[in-house]
């Protein structure tokens, strides 16, 4: 069993957004790992490991499309416990989701992976597209927004529960397949692999990498590919015409009476 997990770097979502020349200015951004990708790696780790003996039953490969020199985020995922990495060296900010999906699909085929696990979206563009597009390109079954995953080892399938408007829907997707992860997948008992006891309780949230994990991560293999190695022409069919900050809000007014408030709502705000 080989699990491929997509991971992305994003500008620190806790930092204030800067704008320059009609675009988001990321020149001084601090790049951090996308949170949903940490859920995806955690899901893959829980599927792959026997939590008691720490023995692994699957290989986990993390894959990122980014400039090769800016792959520090991969270290974090390797430090969490992924076995090795693949970097597709390209300027991810100049690619649209279809191009990224083609590259990921190329890596999936090249690796001969059995399962693709993605975060449901990246926090910067919130596209929520790549997992679905890869499934389309490879003609694979997909279960998106997974809140729970159970590996049915006999049936060679993943049983995925996902929250929908009126309850929880359960899907069974035969391998090879694609899963995209939602927040609830990292609850203490959301992932079951048939090896770790079903009543095993994980800590909530993606696991933290230890200093030893970080040190070991540097020794793990990270393969570097070019889009051409995957027969993909990296580009974008979409062009950004402009990004601007929302207009600053005008200062509020303090009114003397209810009557004055009603009058201003009627005459100035024109909402009555």
């Amino acid at each position, binding site marked *: 069993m080989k699990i491929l997990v997509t991971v992305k770097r994003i500008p620190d979502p806790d930092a204030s957004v800067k704008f320059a020349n009609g675009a988001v200015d990321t020149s001084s951004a601090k790049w*951090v790992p996308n949170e949903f990708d940490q859920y995806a790696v955690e899901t893959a780790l829980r599927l792959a490991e026997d939590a008691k003996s720490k023995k692994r039953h699957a290989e986990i490969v993390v894959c990122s499309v980014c400039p090769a020199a800016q792959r520090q985020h991969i270290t*974090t995922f390797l430090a969490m416990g992924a076995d090795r990495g693949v970097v597709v060296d390209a300027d991810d900010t100049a690619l649209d989701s279809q191009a990224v999906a083609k590259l990921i699909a190329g890596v999936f085929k090249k690796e001969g992976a059995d399962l693709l696990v993605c975060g449901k979206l990246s926090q910067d563009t919130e596209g929520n597209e790549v997992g679905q597009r890869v499934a389309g390109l490879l003609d694979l079954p997909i279960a998106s927004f997974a809140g729970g995953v159970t590996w049915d080892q006999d049936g060679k399938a993943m049983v995925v529960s996902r929250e929908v408007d009126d309850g929880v829907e359960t899907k069974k997707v035969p391998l090879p397949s694609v899963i995209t992860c939602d927040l609830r997948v990292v609850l203490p008992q959301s992932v079951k692999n048939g090896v770790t006891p079903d009543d095993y309780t994980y800590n909530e949230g993606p696991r*933290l990498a230890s*200093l030893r994990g*970080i*040190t070991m991560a*540097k020794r793990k293999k990270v393969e570097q590919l070019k889009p051409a190695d995957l027969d993909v022409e990296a580009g974008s069919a979409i062009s950004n015409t402009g990004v601007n900050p929302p207009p600053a809000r005008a200062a509020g007014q303090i009114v003397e009476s209810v009557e004055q408030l009603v009058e201003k709502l009627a005459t100035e705000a024109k909402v009555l």
Partner: protein
Amino acid sequence: MPASLFYTDEHEAFRTQVRKFVEREISPHIEAWEEAGAFPRELYAKAGEVGLLGVGFPEAYGGTEADGFHKLLLTEELCRPGSGGIVAGLMSHGIGLPPITNMGSDALKEEYVPSILRGEKICALAVTEPSGGSDVANLRTTARRDGDHYIVDGSKTFITSGMRADVITVAVRTGGEGMGGISMLVIDGDTPGLTRTPLKKMGWWCSDTATLYFDGCRVRAENLIGQENEGFRGIMQNFNNERLMLAGMAIASAQVCLDEAIAYARDRETFGRPLIKRQVIRHKLVDMAQRIQSARAALELLTWRVDQGQWPIAEVCMLKNTATQCMEHCAKEAVQILGGAGYIRGVKVERIYRETKVLAIGGGAEEIMKELAARQMGL
């Protein structure tokens, strides 16, 4: 271009993980723990599980080799919730364990180190006595050899984690007067004859502090750390590292004061304008930042020098004073900027204000630091 001469991407990756641990496991509870005067014992196991307790200790015993900056950033991140008590308590093995790992026998290391680094056992250091703290050479607790045991009599006070410690590294007198008669012993917390009294403090509420009484405690001779009567140098080496870490705590706490004061000054309006637009407040904030910048520059340089194997004793003494004075200044100004809000319990700057003195006294008082530096400088 690297952002720092000293911090690498690996350091920053580790910082991110420590910050997450602190945000997840400590920050939401710190106020309750401070008020309760204790934090749960399980926190040691949680910190042990993600390897935080093992940073800088030998891999053979469950630790992870690390440089001074890993240890420094770990201290800094643990300081972010604004409680020195959690740092002192959770990391009390940081002063209790090095004598064992540096000078202890392999058997002693094998027996004690792994369980402490896993967070299963709590470790404390006991040097200070009711009769004196910094005057280590004249300590009075005795360990008299009796066959294959030592009989320990005396008392220790102001011992961090003293109430809960399962393993206590104790400085004792095994020989004649002065520094040449001092040894270190590992004493189990359940040794008959050991009793403990809790101490209430001005700050560091969530860390337990105790006076320990040793009344005819029988301790196996194998629990001697290193050679008999050669414990003084180890205690002094330990102090040097402790002072570097205390300086890190002081500067990190000063930074919390600055961050809190800036956030409050942006938010708080007086007479129609935010506080931060008032020149007197702006200058206070810059003055705080200026002192932090200077102290941090010295801290990073000395951390680097110690990593290179140097022993800049005078400089570390002066750094400790610079750092604690910086913290005292920043805590005072932050409480002043927050005004009434800074005087209310549960606010970080109020807590830090109560913690300034422990850092200016513990690990070597300000006056002792100056005297030691003067001697080192040949004055």
